[in-house]
């Protein structure tokens, strides 16, 4: 009986429910078109995100070190020089693309890795395969550190000044261009 009446309502009622799929599709297509034309015109590039942390001290949430799980990662140990803190994970495809640029950067700058929501064994395997540019690696199993830093997703990197303040946030993989045009200038300024 009740079903009968809903059927009646459907037949005579507004047809909005039949138009919704089209509207949803057009919105998605609009996004895709905007992304595509931005790519074509060359204006779509990974860029820095605003961060509330800029010019503030980096959050000091302690996380265990990857090596043995005994020690704790403390950024204060690296005070006195600029740092790059890189959030990465073995399950993250763009993180694989970062390896060459990070290796290059690590020749002159201390690079700290934070394994974000990742199993330590997977992280180790990832580093074995793609190389390990990090001076120290913290394990952020449950994403608590990432939450404190306001991480959107991986990969994401922060430049930290000699005094421990956050100078730059970069979301997305670091390639040669980002390294030369974004990361290195920030580190030069910090020095």
């Amino acid at each position, binding site marked *: 009986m009740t*079903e*009968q009446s809903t*059927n009646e309502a459907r*037949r005579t009622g507004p*047809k909005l429910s*039949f*138009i919704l*799929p*089209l509207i949803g*599709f*057009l919105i*998605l*297509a609009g*996004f*895709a*078109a*905007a*992304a*595509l034309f*931005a*790519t*074509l015109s060359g204006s*779509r*590039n*990974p*860029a820095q*995100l605003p961060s509330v942390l800029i010019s503030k001290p980096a959050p000091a949430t302690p996380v265990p070190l990857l090596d043995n799980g005994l020690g704790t990662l403390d950024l204060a140990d690296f005070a006195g020089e600029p740092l790059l803190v890189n959030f990465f*994970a073995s*399950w*993250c*495809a*763009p993180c*694989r693309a970062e390896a060459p640029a990070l290796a290059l950067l690590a020749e002159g700058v201390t690079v700290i890795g934070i394994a974000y*929501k990742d199993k330590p*064994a997977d992280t*180790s*395997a990832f580093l*074995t*395969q793609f190389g390990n540019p990090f001076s120290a690696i913290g394990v952020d199993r449950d*994403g608590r550190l990432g939450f404190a830093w306001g991480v*959107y*997703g*991986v*990969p*994401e990197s922060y430049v930290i000044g000699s005094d421990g303040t956050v100078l730059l946030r970069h*979301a*997305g*993989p670091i390639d040669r261009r980002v390294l030369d045009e974004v990361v290195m200038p920030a580190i030069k300024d910090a020095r």
Partner: protein
Amino acid sequence: MIAELGHFALILAFVTSLLVSVVPLVGVARGNAALMQLAVPATLVMTGGVLIAFAALVWAFVTSDFSVALVTSHSHSAKPLIYKISGTWGNHEGSLLLWIVILVSFAAILTFSGRAMPIVLKTRTLAIQGIVSAAFLAFSLFTSNPFARLSPAPLDGNGLNPVLQDPGLALHPPTLYIGYVGLSMAFSFAVAGLLDGRIDRAWAIYVRPWITAAWCALTIGIALGSWWAYYELGWGGWWFWDPVENASLMPWLATTALIHSVSVVAARGIFKSWTVLLAILAFSLSLVGTFIVRSGLLTSVHSFASDPARGVFILGILLFAIGIPLALFAWRGPQLTNDGDYQPVSREFGLLVNNFLLTAATIVVLIGTFYPLGLEMVSGARITVGPPYFDATFNPIMGVLVLAMAFGPVMAWRRGTLPGLRLVASSAIVAALAAVLAGLALVTGISLAGLAGIGMIAWLGGGILADMVHRMRRTHHVGFGARLGAIQLPVWGMWCAHLGMVVFLLGALGNGLFASEAVVRAKPGDVIDLAGNEITFAGIEARQGPNYVTSTAMLDLRRDGQLLARLEPENRLYTAERQTTTEAAIRPRLSGDDYAVLGDGDAQMGYTLRLYHKPLVSWIWAGAGLMALGGFLAAIGRARRPQRIAELDAPT
């Protein structure tokens, strides 16, 4: 010469496809039978042209004709014959042509098989299939011509990406494409039905075999891809939530929903507009799946080289192929009236729950795949959401689906009674409790999620077995054999597919809970303990393959001093391409796989070895195989006992 012949055949197919797209529809509009009947021969000519073009391209690859630009950039004379052939579709242009081959072949099969179909429905379906074919033939000819020449022709080619030189590549894309493209038939039927303004039980019975076939092919294709990633990428994982994988999972989820909803249309004549919408969306998702990764919009570890200029054409096709049918749906959908009603506790309701959950799962995957793109548009950041997101969203939905799956099959059509409910419920609960207790007793330190998983799998298995017992009791036949025989093949198919889900889940859970691994730096002579086995690193040697050289590690796997196997993981250097690949060594057993990968290193420092023991991992693919087998059984059963469609028009 052969290449020009192929190019010409492709142009011919394109021109004919325009004919198929327009003339039969004009015939339907004017009621002109001669124009309508043109759809059949024109479809066959179009198919012939595409097949000749594809044969010409395969020929160019087999004979290493380096005057064809595509062969130069994707092949090499020193490549084994099988990879010359499979190399034909190991690139954007060739795989697009393969896609079109399958698209037109399905239309050709319909011209032969749909003899009993109403001529208007058949003509319209062929015409819609023709329109889709025309769009993709234009895409191929105008942006991705596989026959473009290179002058002067180089002496040798650049080779094929070594990762793709694998039997997996010969099988995985064609199977997956049959699944993707098979959905084009469901799509064409749906659009033709909307044009008719009439979807009935007969429509559902005609379209059903195409949906089942597409689903089986998708299932096998995805399983092959997962298996290939497992043994070829050397990661020991079987699913990575990569955009390309998600792109194949979304149409699979939608098609799984479609298989269930079309059964309601076929049996009861309700859920019509929803089924039509699902058919359109399933094909749309498969279009998105095949092409979005080639447009440069999403980054993926294993996409073809992407090209934003091509992306514009792809976006145009998607707008046209998804937008117009959805507009048609908005206009005509409200006219599709239901032929009956149903009670809240009935099989219809159960299938509604199934569709709701599968759609929710599809949307979750869609969001996880495209959220990074949306975020990038808003903030400019390029990031990924990975397993943590899917673990938190997709898995719970699937968990509820598994719990509900135990009860769906035992529900009766229409009525509010549940004849087998008590048996199924008590079996599911007893099985789940027993499994949880066994898990607590046998596995030390088992996680809560693991316990829940074990309980759920047992719940589903118990429910399915109880349903089998219940149905066999219900028949009036005497004797076990006669009772078995009285069950119809489609029911066996359903059980097989559902049990496949149990097997799949056992594999996923066994591997997820009990896998052990060791990453070590070892020198020859070292012994590594893993999962009760001893692995002795016997040494490293260089070997020569047909077009590569290797460095191969020799690992002796022993249990209690007894030699079980020698594992030989290797790193290959492909000389023509100057690229290396990692080949895992796997000892597959029903109880679990031993899996070894050789990393970098040298004689002084030692070599990095990654060793895994992965319990039940092969059950993942065996489960997928059972699901596909279930689909085939159901399709065969329905083909052998076709429902008499004339009877359907009689009032029920």
